[in-house]
């Protein structure tokens, strides 16, 4: 029995090593190409081991350090503020949805679910945020539109409350005379750590990786996040290589090379890889998927 078990574990571990290799190998390719000398990269293509090692891509990024560091600063700030606000709003919205005392509970559930299926499209949303709220070229533009709250997170959090917060506990607290807000913050919140960590990570990831809000609302490059910088470089390259550029007077030599694009991609991913393991144990406990009406 134990021998059989051990073989089974061996096979499982082997499969997972394969899966991990499949998942990581392309990332290593990315890393290695960011460490390869430019001309070599153009001549030989991508290799898992740089045939001619060079730190020039990273040196270039250090050279435009103020831009990259500023981009990092923006990304970190926006991620932190956005995640905290988004968390709080999601938390405050999802909890009442999980309570039977909430009047028109079904209506509110659908109110959320509807937003997952329909959206007004880019232009109306853009007009809303820029003409009524004037958030263009402000940090708010990176935080507020689209990312703060989404239906999936609300429904997931609500399902967590339904399944993991014993109703008796809430009832007991209320009999002791605690108001709804006290119940929420003193009883429910401490029990919701896994949920908070999970939804927090999900919201945080979206903020960290977002470049669309920059594309729509930001033209001031002082407000570019890391992902926006990367995306702008890549879209410039794509525009040039589409052959649409008129005249010939552009100097493509000034555009960051493939190696640099890869290097920016790498430095955009590394922080997440460092943070994720700390969230992991909560992550798994926090994910609860359930229906809309709950």
């Amino acid at each position, binding site marked *: 029995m134990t021998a059989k078990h051990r073989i*089974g*574990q061996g096979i*499982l571990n082997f499969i*997972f090593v394969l*899966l*991990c290799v499949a*998942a990581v190998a*392309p*990332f290593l*390719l*990315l890393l290695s190409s960011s460490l390869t000398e430019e001309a070599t990269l153009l001549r*030989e*293509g*991508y290799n898992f081991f740089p045939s001619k090692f060079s730190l020039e891509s990273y040196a270039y990024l250090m050279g435009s350090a103020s831009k990259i560091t500023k981009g990092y600063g923006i990304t970190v700030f926006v991620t932190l503020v956005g995640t905290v606000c988004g968390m709080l*709003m*999601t938390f405050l*919205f999802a909890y*009442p*949805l999980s309570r*039977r*005392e*909430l*009047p028109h509970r079904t209506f*509110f559930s*659908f*109110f959320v*679910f509807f937003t*997952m*299926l329909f*959206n*007004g*499209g880019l*232009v*109306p949303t853009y*007009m*809303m945020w820029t003409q009524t709220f004037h958030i263009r070229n402000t940090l708010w533009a990176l935080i*507020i*539109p689209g990312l703060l709250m989404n239906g*999936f997170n*609300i429904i997931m959090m609500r399902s967590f409350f339904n399944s993991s917060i014993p109703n008796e506990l809430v009832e007991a607290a*209320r009999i002791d005379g605690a108001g*709804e*807000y006290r119940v*929420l913050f003193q009883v429910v919140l401490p029990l919701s750590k896994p949920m908070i960590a999970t939804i927090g990570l999900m919201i945080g990831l979206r903020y960290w*990786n977002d*470049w669309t809000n920059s594309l729509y609302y930001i033209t001031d490059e002082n407000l570019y996040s890391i*992902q926006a910088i*990367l*995306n702008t470089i890549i879209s410039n390259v794509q525009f040039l290589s589409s052959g649409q550029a008129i005249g010939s007077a552009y100097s493509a030599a000034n555009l960051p090379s493939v190696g640099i*694009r*890869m290097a920016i*991609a790498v430095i955009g*991913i590394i922080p997440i*890889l460092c943070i*994720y*393991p700390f969230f*992991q144990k909560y992550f*798994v406990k926090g*994910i609860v*998927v359930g229906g809309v009406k709950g």
Partner: protein
Amino acid sequence: MAKTAVKPSKKKGMKGTSRTSLALISMMVPGIIYLIINNYIPMAGLVVAFKQFDYAKGIWGSGWAGFGNFTYLFKTRDAFNIVRNTLLYNIVFIILGNILAITVAIMLNFLKGQMNKKVYQTLILIPYLISMVVVSYIVYGFLSMDSGFVNKLITAFGGTAVSWYTQAKYWPVILTIVHLWSGFGYSSIVYYATVIGIDSSLYEAASIDGANVWKQIWHITLPGLRITIITLVLMAMGRMFYSDFGLFYQVPMRSGLLSSATDTIDVFVYKALTQLNDVGRSSAAGLLQSVLGFIMVLSANLIVSKVDSDSALF
């Protein structure tokens, strides 16, 4: 059914309840305001799908176009093609993606040891973090005609190099692999979260009864995952007419020859309208996608609720 049971107690504590509901609703106020501003008011802008959008006149001042903005979607020979592509890819992605994720989640559950579990969980999430544009470069690194790994491998075994970016027939497979690769880690962890929530005493009881691993999976794990699976699949069905733009537009490196296999509704609309800047037409496509997706969810949910009302989404 549950409602009737609750009702009497509700009436008894009417006073307390109204204060409670007020407090509860007050919590939701920020979220409600946000959803109204960010989602519902712009939804009114969908009316632009029926308008000949004039920038000087705005959404409301522009003249009506009736269904004129929709016709271009059906005028082409490609109309059938793009709808077929979108639906087929989504169906394949939903089926294979879920099978793969559930398999990985179950394997993860059977795995012993904390450290290796943690490492595996971290590593398989990496693809999820890489943006599609960067993925497209990586894919190119594998598939490029003369410096790509796949061709190096093929020629090393004596085959002839394949020109991947000019032959559409390979791309349904390539795109499926790329999609599964980039998403499997994340969805595995979502399923794994449910799997570990299943009461472990059920397994113990089963193994005492002599049920082998396969039987345990079949009779305990999969039923335990039922609601999660149905919920995720139903939600995915709402997005049935959408596609991951990055995957279908960037990863094929915009090679026109591949378009019969890689054009989905989103890509087609994007390509068709970059020259025309036509807000009305792109809204029309978006509206159609949403409405069709909505119908899909409703009907799928109806079927589910007929068969197994507990698992239905709503």
